């Protein structure tokens, strides 16, 4: 009996609705994507220059039953073949999270299939598990619109933050300077493209780069960028937007790479992972890969950079993380609620500061 059971495939239907994407996916054994549906609302929020939470929540609800059915259909499975229903319960926009949470709970109640609540950040990091096998301990650089963190993965379910941003997240800084350059949200991709056509001529500050910790700060960089543009405006001087983008990106990537490499030297993990929307940034991906090739052979980790389509918000990554929680027996009950400020635990080294 037990032997047979342990060989059984575990199939998880996952939900993600923490911000402006509504997504469902069926993931087999935490590694194989059998279906993934992503309904994006970018077009709607571009009207406002950024995500409006109430509008986001309304859109999530409009598609939730349809994309549930679609995920099952595309995976060619029925509810009978689903072993668990997983959902992002935080962090994120509370009204948006609540659509996924309410839907997943209702689905669990209607079918009797167990429920698993997943931390969105754990999900982003576990996008790597859909790309390649992770050897533990692992270290992740998690960079998105809401987060910039260095996370130590002791095993598939025990994560600790060893460094994070003291103010703006890297992705947030991209959107804010994007606005100054007239690039609509989400600005990351365009700034990345422009950066490749320009040079670092402005030498913006690299905040906290030489500090003896793994924390980040991007608000100073953002202010320096905005001041430079305003000053040029006042004296009617035209600045090269490609050079501005290149200079901004160089400052961000320098700090991220520098601190991450130092963390890799200290923690010497077996795997290095990148996760989050900014992990799709070409400049950052190339730089990290290059820096890691320069590490001494005995501490060179395996590198997993998730597929570009798995860097943004999606339910497949939630299904991947949920599989590990399933194996650990970490289930949720019908009282599961959205937790907009959910955080991974901090390492002792950070709490003792």
């Amino acid at each position: 009996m037990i032997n047979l059971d342990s060989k059984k495939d575990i199939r998880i239907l996952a939900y993600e609705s923490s911000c402006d994407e509504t997504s469902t996916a069926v993931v087999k054994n935490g590694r194989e994507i059998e279906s993934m549906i992503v309904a994006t609302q970018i077009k709607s929020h571009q009207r406002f220059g950024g995500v409006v939470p109430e509008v986001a929540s309304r859109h999530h609800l409009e598609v939730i039953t349809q994309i549930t059915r679609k995920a099952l259909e595309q995976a060619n499975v029925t509810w009978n073949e689903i072993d668990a229903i997983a959902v992002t319960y935080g962090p994120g926009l509370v009204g948006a999270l609540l659509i996924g949470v309410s839907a997943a709970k209702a689905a669990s109640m209607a079918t009797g299939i167990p429920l698993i609540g997943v931390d969105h950040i754990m999900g982003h990091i576990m996008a790597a598990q859909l790309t390649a096998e992770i050897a533990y301990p692992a270290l992740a650089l998690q960079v998105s619109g809401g987060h910039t963190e260095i996370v130590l993965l002791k095993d598939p379910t025990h994560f600790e933050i060893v460094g994070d941003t003291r103010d703006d997240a890297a992705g947030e800084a991209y959107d804010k300077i994007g606005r100054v350059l007239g690039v609509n949200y989400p600005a990351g991709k365009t700034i990345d493209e422009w950066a490749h056509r320009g040079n670092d001529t402005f030498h913006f500050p690299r905040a906290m780069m030489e500090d003896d910790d793994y924390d980040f700060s991007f608000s100073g960089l953002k202010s320096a960028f905005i001041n430079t543009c305003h000053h040029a405006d006042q004296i009617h001087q035209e600045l090269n937007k490609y050079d501005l983008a290149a200079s901004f990106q160089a400052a961000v990537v320098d700090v991220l790479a520098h601190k991450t490499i130092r963390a890799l030297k200290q923690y010497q993990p077996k795997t290095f992972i990148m996760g989050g929307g900014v992990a799709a940034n070409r400049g950052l991906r190339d730089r990290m890969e290059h820096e890691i090739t320069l590490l001494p052979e005995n501490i060179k980790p395996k590198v997993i950079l998730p597929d570009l389509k798995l860097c943004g918000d999606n339910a497949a990554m939630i299904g991947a993380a949920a599989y590990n929680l399933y194996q650990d027996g970490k289930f949720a009950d019908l009282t599961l609620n959205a937790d907009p400020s959910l955080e991974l635990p901090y390492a002792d080294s950070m709490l003792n500061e």
Partner: protein
Amino acid sequence: MKILSISTATNQLSVALNEDQRVITEKNERDERNHSEHLDPLFQEILTENKLTLKEIDRFAVAIGPGSYTGLRIGVTTVKMFASILHKELVGVSTLQALAAGALSDQDLVIAGIDARNDNYFAGAYLDQQEQAPICVIDDGHYHIDTLLAAIKKYYEDHPVKELVFVGSGFEKQQKLLEQLEIPYRFGTQKQNEIHAGLIGQLALQEKPVDADELLPKYLRRTQAEADWHQKTGKPFGSDRDYVEEV
């Protein structure tokens, strides 16, 4: 027919099980902003007590709005999923019609409303129709109190009723303006001022079921961001569907 009905439209959480017209059980909980935690366990409680499973429910009914936007979405999402997965019937009932249904009496006009702050109300006016669902004579909408009272006055001039009955929330503070109407009026009792899922179940019995994919809350109000955008650009709001794309 077994009907399971809910309201998450206000800070009162209400769940009921009806057998046709009869309310078998109704549970009410006052829980500020915590419907998400309490709704499903409350369902479970009712089902267990009545030795039923969700599969044995024939029709799901929900207060579809107006009301707290987040609250409405929790309720609507939940029953949409139930109906869609279990292939059961689904009905949305106006929150205001359900409120009015609890206070109807012959010859009175019932004004059901939910306080929307700054002297604004989500409100509608309803008349008793004996065996049938209360009929709406002032459409559910988002009204300033002055607009609402003007509409009531106009209706009264054409169709004199014995008394006005104000039910729901926030009308007590308008007493001065209500006096100026010079129409007999009274406020609902505490019980009448709360939404009862049992009544939603009864109203749902007379409604035609809708496709679970199509059921959406009736917010009765655009978001501020959309209104501002519309005013600034002059562009039409467009269909919500056009703003969400599969990638």
